[in-house]
């Protein structure tokens, strides 16, 4: 004859459905008649129910990215001096901005940015003049910084690989081809370098009104605007205006900045909006050759666009815009190629 203690020993096995079938009915019969064992059983059930009320916690933010960085370091054949990061499609999404959006934004800008068409039928003759005087509409849409940058890029013509936008179309294409070859050779030589992307969230009261100030401050510290502002709220259709649509709470801007200047630039931002306005400051490493390859493929695309420009009279993008874009990308590639000590400072500006 079993005692109550024998039955209470079986409780958890019973609950776990691990009790032998011959004991099962015996156990059930017993708790039907024994009050104390029934109470004990109920308490065990209740305790397990309470324990199981704990829910699974979500993975911490950036867990996967951080782990990825550590794995790279552990990779047996990785060069310890140069930490290489391979940016995967998946991470583009997580990173949210760096390269994917950046490249996409350039493409969008190239094709949809300024709805300005060349009105004259004599394109080749009009080209040089148009290049130097963007229409008012275009300037307004681009904002002062971008048009200024386009101008200065144009003034630098001839410096970078003899690309000149005032030359005839065929000359430009020929030169660009040389440029590409040169870059890809260099890439293979410097394939193991990394570029830092520093992600910063700056919380300000009115994001849409502070953009110019941010750009000016960062320009003063040697940062170069590498892309227009992306309106984070409407990521499906990137806003390429220099200010965001009023009312949206969040914007995104990217700058190329040398590592040595980075902290100064950050301090500059803090000096204006306060230490507490910067809410996040993360670093992601990007393989520099990947970045250059991306830019190169964009360059190729621009090339094709320029090549087919004459045939496509319906195209509403002016040739000089394409070329300004091209020069911009070239100088970015140049910067990346020459000096991997650069960072991409990617700033999200949010409402406080």
């Amino acid at each position, binding site marked *: 004859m079993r005692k109550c203690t024998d039955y209470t020993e079986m409780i958890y096995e019973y609950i776990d459905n691990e009790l032998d079938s011959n004991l099962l009915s015996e156990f059930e019969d017993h708790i039907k008649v024994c009050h104390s064992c029934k109470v004990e059983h109920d308490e065990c059930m209740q305790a397990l129910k309470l324990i199981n009320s704990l829910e699974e916690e979500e993975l911490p933010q950036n867990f996967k990215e951080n782990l*990825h960085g550590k794995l790279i370091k552990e990779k047996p054949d990785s060069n310890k001096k140069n930490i290489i990061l*391979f940016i995967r499609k998946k991470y583009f999404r997580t990173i949210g901005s760096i390269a994917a959006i950046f490249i996409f934004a350039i493409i969008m800008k190239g094709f949809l940015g300024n709805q300005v068409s060349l009105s004259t039928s004599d394109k080749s003759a009009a080209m040089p003049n148009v290049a130097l005087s963007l229409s008012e509409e275009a300037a307004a849409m681009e904002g002062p910084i971008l048009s200024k940058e386009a101008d200065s890029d144009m003034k630098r013509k001839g410096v970078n690989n003899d690309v000149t936008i005032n030359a005839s179309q065929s000359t430009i294409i020929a030169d660009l081809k040389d440029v590409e070859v040169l870059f890809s050779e260099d890439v293979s030589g410097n394939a193991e370098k990394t570029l830092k992307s520093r992600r910063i969230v700056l919380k300000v009261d009115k994001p849409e009104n502070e953009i110019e100030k941010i750009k000016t401050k960062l320009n003063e510290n040697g940062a170069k605007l590498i892309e227009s502002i992306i309106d984070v709220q409407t990521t499906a259709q990137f806003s390429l205006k220099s200010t965001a649509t009023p009312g949206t709470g969040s914007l995104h801007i990217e700058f190329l900045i040398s590592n040595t200047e980075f902290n100064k630039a950050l301090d500059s931002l803090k000096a204006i909006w306060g230490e507490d306005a910067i809410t996040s400051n993360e670093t992601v490493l990007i393989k520099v050759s990947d970045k250059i390859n991306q830019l190169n493929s964009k360059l190729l695309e621009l090339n094709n666009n320029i090549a087919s420009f004459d045939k496509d009279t319906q195209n509403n993008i002016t040739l000089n815009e394409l070329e300004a874009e091209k020069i911009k990308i070239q100088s970015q590639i140049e910067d990346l190629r020459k000096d991997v000590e650069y960072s991409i400072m990617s700033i999200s500006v949010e409402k406080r």
Partner: protein
Amino acid sequence: MIENEINLLKKSKNGDIEAFEELIEGYQKKVFNIAFRMVGNYDDASELAQEVFIKIFKGIKSFKEESTFSTWVYKITTNVCLDELRKTRNKKSISLEEELKLDDGEVQIQIVDQRPLPETIFEQKEIKKTVKKAIDNLSHEHRIVIVLRELNGLNYEEIAKILKCPVGTVKSRINRARQELKEILKNNKELFSEEYVKISSKEESI
């Protein structure tokens, strides 16, 4: 082992990080949660979970496929967590005491509080906090079996392989741990009042 896992494992052994990440995709949250329940702190758990995966990555060549990959993952997780707890045992007991200090400086002796139980979301949170504290108060040996069994739903046999001990030992350890936990939770009589038991079983049936 499913074909895809074998394939990913093979690539991971050759140092393919992407394959490795795909391989561990389904384990990351689980490992993090084991670590979180073991150390009771979000940041430490995050660090530990990363340490686990680094260890797995570094040691993946030595994984002989005698056990399943999941058992191996949990084995390493368990070891890393228990090592950490051993290392920080002294530190931990001090910080626990600090946690128990009330605002007015008195030290709360009971782990669970004795306030009445309104049926609100807030109360649900309180219950979870109480349970969490109760688990934190278990010995490491008991805590790990509770975490693996109750929170990760592993069966006795899997746990035996992870802890490298006989199934019978696991069974009795789980039962002792449950019993200990029950006794701690019973300090809060409300959680075991007839009324509450009824309410919670009603909730479950809905």
